[in-house]
């Protein structure tokens, strides 16, 4: 079926956009993720990638056209698919009429949304708390049924909803280099900064954060090529660190307790050693970067899998009790497989970080003489990164080895790890 190519929203305030040049001509073949066209905004030209592979057909916008966000500018169709641009446009408009709440990006007839991210009619029907929670979780209030008077959305209507696929408010557009980020919790004192592992995203921390004994502010980013963040930089550890640091600086975080898992732990350890950033404590959960081996069969299988059937056996390797992972992780992984580009980005990242199935980066030397309170949490049954890699570091680093736990201690032993994070944060002041 023909896939619509739409003018995406690349800026929160954007209601219309000006078409820039096309990189692909009518009828030419494109690959998913290939540069397709440019949008000219006030600030810069933004590049838009092809949402699917096929032939570009029915181009109906040219450079200089001013169009509402979500307008269809063309279609990508299969090699031998019948295609009539007028019929396609009609079908799109019919769909929009029949499903008025359908996503903005696919509704060409929908008028451009107002400049603010909250429409005036939504303002009146959500409590301030519900609005804040929705903002933090990237939820669209318009899609939430309110249980209060006159349908007012209240916190309880928002609280247990996980963010929908690709709906993070600061989701990066094409050409964007900002990392997606979110405050998972607010509170008093220095923030905890959470950095997820390879193939995960920031939402994976939410179950753990709920168990933190005291309400400290908790902040998380999506690493490049994960969640709502584009793959930018050359895919090296130092590039990951630099981009993470940039995201923290933009949020005004110059001192924090760092909590990282797996690849995120290596990022955390390297970030802690950066001059100018003040790490208050360091919590490394099943850290990468301490030795050469990593389960390459897992990585390769994980990246190859395209369905729940092929993915699930690999996900089972992550934890001793796979039920402890919750539905969220598998869903996140599956969602990534539906979204164009993310899996390819991760494959590229894996090739750079783990060439020939080896951890090509190392943070051991950074942990020889820790200046801040540091803990390492590993699962004795870890099948992804051998837990023995945490041996032989400074005696000042506390090693917590959980029996009956695999590569995901923050999910498999949530309460205990939350308590250790609290202990460490207290020690770090």
């Amino acid at each position, binding site marked *: 079926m023909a896939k619509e190519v739409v003018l995406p929203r690349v800026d929160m305030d954007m209601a219309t956009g000006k078409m820039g040049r096309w990189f692909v001509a009518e009828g030419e073949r494109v690959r998913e993720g290939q540069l397709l066209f440019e949008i000219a905004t006030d600030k810069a030209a933004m590049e838009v990638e092809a949402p699917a592979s096929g032939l570009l057909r029915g181009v109906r916008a040219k450079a200089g056209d001013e169009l509402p966000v979500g307008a269809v500018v063309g279609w990508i169709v299969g090699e031998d698919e019948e295609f009539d641009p007028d019929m396609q446009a009609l079908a799109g408009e019919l769909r929009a009429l029949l499903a008025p709440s359908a996503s903005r990006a696919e509704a060409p007839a929908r008028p451009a949304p107002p400049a603010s991210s909250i429409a005036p009619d939504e303002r009146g029907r959500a*409590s*301030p*708390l519900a*609005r*804040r929670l929705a903002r933090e979780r990237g939820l669209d209030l318009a899609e939430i049924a309110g249980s*209060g*008077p006159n349908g007012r959305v*209240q*916190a*309880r209507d928002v609280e247990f909803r996980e963010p929908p696929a690709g709906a993070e408010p600061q989701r990066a557009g094409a050409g964007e280099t900002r990392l997606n980020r979110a405050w998972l919790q607010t509170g008093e004192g220095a923030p905890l900064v959470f950095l997820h592992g390879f193939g995960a995203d920031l939402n994976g921390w939410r179950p753990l954060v709920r168990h933190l004994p005291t309400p400290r502010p908790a902040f998380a980013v999506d690493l490049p090529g994960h969640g709502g963040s584009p793959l930018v930089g050359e895919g090296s550890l130092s590039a990951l660190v630099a981009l993470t640091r940039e995201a923290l600086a933009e949020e005004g975080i110059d001192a924090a307790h760092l909590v990282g898992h797996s690849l995120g732990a290596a990022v955390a350890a390297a970030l802690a050693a950066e001059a100018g950033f003040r790490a208050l404590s360091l919590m490394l959960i099943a850290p990468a970067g301490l030795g050469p081996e990593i389960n390459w069969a897992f990585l390769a299988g994980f990246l190859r899998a395209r369905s729940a059937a092929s993915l699930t056996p690999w996900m089972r390797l992550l934890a001793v009790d796979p039920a402890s992972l919750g539905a969220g992780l598998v869903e996140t992984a599956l969602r990534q497989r539906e979204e164009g580009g993310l899996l390819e980005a991760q494959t590229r990242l894996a090739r750079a970080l783990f060439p020939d199935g080896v951890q090509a980066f190392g943070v051991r030397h950074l942990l020889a003489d820790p200046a801040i309170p540091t803990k390492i949490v590993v699962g004795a049954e870890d099948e992804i990164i051998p837990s023995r890699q945490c041996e032989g570091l400074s005696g000042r680093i506390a090693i917590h080895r959980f029996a009956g736990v695999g590569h995901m201690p923050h999910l498999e032993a949530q309460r205990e790890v939350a308590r250790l994070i609290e202990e460490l944060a207290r020690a770090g002041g």
Partner: protein
Amino acid sequence: MPQAMRELTFAEAIREALAIALEADERVVLMGEDIGVYGGAFQVTGDLVERFGENRVIDTPISELAGAGVAVGAALTGTRPVYEFQFSDFSMLAMEQIVNQAAKIRYMLGGAVHVPVVFRMPTGSGLGGAAQHSQSLEAWFAHVPGLKVIEPSTPHDVKGMLLSAIADPDPVIVFEHKLLYKVKGPVPEGDYRVALDKAALRREGRDLTIVATGIMTHRALEAAAILAGEGVEAEIVDLRCLRPFDGETIVASVKKTTRLLAVYEGVKTLGLGAEVSARVAESEAIDYLDAPILRLGGVEAPIPYSPVLEKAAVPQVEDIVAAARSLAQGRA
């Protein structure tokens, strides 16, 4: 095992504070209509005239303007008068002395003098006093810079706060709800002080914050007990101090509970609840609110004489229960 603290009524606690102050500081004098041999309109001063004599416990003529003026003048010349109004309503006659003189003299003389006077004001409805003897005028005075305004709700607090007020170098207005005079509570022996600028958390709860003052604190606590039976846990903040106003305690509580109900006896419009809600609306707590802020105040009318109407004119326990329930259940 520690001994249970003795209990006094609210009126006895006030009398004890006055006696301690009279005993400790010879500059302290009591003034007011019928506070001597008669013992005060609500029998608060009681036998103090017998214990301290007519030079320390002074009956003044039936002129609030004259009495308050003498008290302000005496304060300026080095004594520490405590002037009792029979009813806070009668302070209207003395507004010039309280608002234009006591509150402003220190400011206008560049801090060269202080006016260490205390005005005690029996306040509120519930005793059939009708329109001119039942008002709640706290907000009037709390609006005036230069005054300190307090409204204690327990015998413990009224003793400690009155002692703080008498020791304070500036004019302090003490609102005493008439229905509280016979309420008993634990009161420590001897001299102790309670600060004049800090609200008190009377009950912890997770579902909503009720900010109340004076008699309304007791009604809110009664309501909270009923609500607890329904699974609604109300947090009760006893405002206690109206000027200076402790917004921080309210903001901290609302950030925890996400809902706010202000309960006060004065007329609802432009009353204490307006300040309570504004403090939250202006603070970071706005992003924690999960429901509109509600106010329960007195009706927009004079207090009626009819006991049935008098009761209906100000918030009662069942009104607080109903408002809190709808707030906590997300129906407000």
